[in-house]
């Protein structure tokens, strides 16, 4: 386990270094002079020189990169050009909203995907199965930025059950969470179905049936627990899709999280803030994947003994 842990951590560090490098290089991809783009044409020469110096853009690339790494190690993400505040402060302010939205979407996903997948597997080839998988296909094909407005139209404008947008009270999280959770539900319910079907063919299920255990007990205790392993891995991998989807969903609902902050930063050409948002979301994703892998290795000895990938 220890050697697997060390190997996996070293790999993650390399990936993190690569992600930091790409995020650092993003600002250098802007066509033209980034300082001019950020300040606009009306800025004075002195202002430009000051911004250039404060961003370190007058230094050679290698020196800029080392400086960037050094500041990251001290959790110094720079200063927002537009809001004139520390970027880390802005991120911390928005973090709880995104955390709440992600957690609520995960809850929606699990509440929908597990019953759908189990139902489809247990009643394979019946209309239940076709219906559940058809629903999952619909969910996989509907884009967040259309489902969101549709839900607002029906549940906020026509029925008036939930607020249209923003974050006011507990009810306001329902529609964004449904919007964000639908895509993941679609992927996950298919995975639950195929994983359950595999497990239901095993000998120990037949044994349990032969013992005369009640059906629900076989499905929940014997089949589901074994079927959940691949589902958990997929959940970890798909959390990234959830985080990236949060950018669009938060924009639809004006949900004050990191995703909306990213779009606001792009629109106001606040590049240090854009860099920090992208870095933050990506690093959370890397960390989640790392923990999923480690948890999986802890549960399933075949992975750590096989030397990983």
């Amino acid at each position, binding site marked *: 386990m220890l050697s697997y842990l060390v190997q996996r951590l070293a790999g993650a560090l390399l*990936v993190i270094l*690569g992600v930091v490098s790409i995020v650092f290089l993003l600002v250098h991809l802007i066509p033209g002079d980034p300082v001019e783009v950020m300040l606009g044409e009306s800025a004075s020469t002195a202002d430009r020189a000051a911004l250039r110096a404060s961003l370190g853009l007058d230094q050679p690339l290698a020196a800029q990169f080392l400086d960037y790494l050094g500041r990251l190690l001290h959790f110094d993400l720079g200063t927002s050009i537009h809001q004139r505040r520390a970027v880390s402060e802005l991120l911390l302010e928005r973090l709880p909203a995104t955390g709440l939205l992600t957690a609520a979407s995960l809850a929606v996903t699990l509440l929908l995907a597990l019953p759908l997948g189990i139902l489809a597997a247990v009643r394979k080839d019946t209309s239940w199965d076709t219906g559940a998988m058809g629903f999952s296909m619909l969910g996989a094909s509907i884009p967040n930025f*259309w489902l969101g407005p549709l839900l*607002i139209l029906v549940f906020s*404008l026509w029925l008036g059950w939930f607020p249209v947008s923003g974050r006011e009270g507990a009810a306001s999280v329902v529609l964004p969470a449904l919007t964000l959770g639908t895509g993941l539900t679609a992927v996950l319910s298919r995975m639950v179905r195929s994983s359950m079907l595999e497990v239901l063919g095993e000998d120990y299920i037949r044994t349990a049936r032969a013992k005369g255990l009640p059906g629900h007990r076989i499905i929940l205790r014997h089949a589901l627990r074994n079927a959940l392993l691949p589902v958990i891995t997929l959940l970890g991998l798909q959390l990234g899709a959830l985080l*990236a989807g949060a950018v669009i969903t938060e924009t639809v609902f004006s949900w004050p999280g990191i995703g909306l902050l990213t*779009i606001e930063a792009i629109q106001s050409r606040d590049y240090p803030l854009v860099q920090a948002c992208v870095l933050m979301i*990506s690093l959370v*994703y890397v960390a989640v994947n790392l923990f999923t892998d480690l948890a999986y290795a802890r549960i399933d000895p075949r992975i750590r003994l096989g030397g990983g*990938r």
Partner: protein
Amino acid sequence: MRFWLPAGILAAWLVMALAAQFLPLTPNAIELPQILASPSATSWLGHDDLGRQIADRLLIGACTSLLVSVWVVGLSLLVGTLFGTSTAYHGGWWDKLAVQLVDIFLAFPGILLAIALAGLLGPGIDNVVIALTTVGWVGYARLSRAQVLSLKHREHVQAAEALGSSRWCIMRRHLLPLMAAPLIVEATFGVAAVVIAEAGLSFLGLGVQPPQASWGAMIRDGSRYMLVAPHMVLAPGVAIFAVVLSINLLGDRLRDKLDTKMTAKTGTPS
């Protein structure tokens, strides 16, 4: 029915996109008396917030999404397959470096890197293609690498090597034909993903330039007038949904038919 309906929808998408080049459309003509007008006999899908014909803009939008998805999937497939095939066949430190690079790109969740790139490069179709290809090639690289690793020790490849065939010839004649099926399936789902991604970028205001029509930008405009003119959001949304659903349905059938084990789709690390 299960084949012809999605196939028909996709055919309609192609015809719409191609016909948009030739029909006398007026997607940017502003008719002030018609602002937010509901669908009627003379304009099937009504007018938007500037009084422009939604039906005309829908056709131009079909063209935009087709153009972007053909370019992005084509380029990603080319770059990814060449990269994955050559590194896996070559092996050694070059392959190790390639795996590391692919891992780094995969560490950016979903469309996030494309959003950042499109935001920094500025709006425009070419920048959308660049941003989505930068994110898209990785999947094909990983898939083709895994395929080559399992194929390169086959007997027919060894025979070709013994005969002194060049590396390029082995890749083209002996490896690529056997890798085609999973790559085609992956590319099919890739088209659906790019249609959503392009519309998503345009929805965020990072896609095509404003007068140019895109389904995503139409939804974005429409979401501000939902109570008075829901038809503005419905028409482009139904279009995206129908196209993506059809591609996914046909992709599933294609996968069953070609019977490839899609490791990339379920996200298992290669």
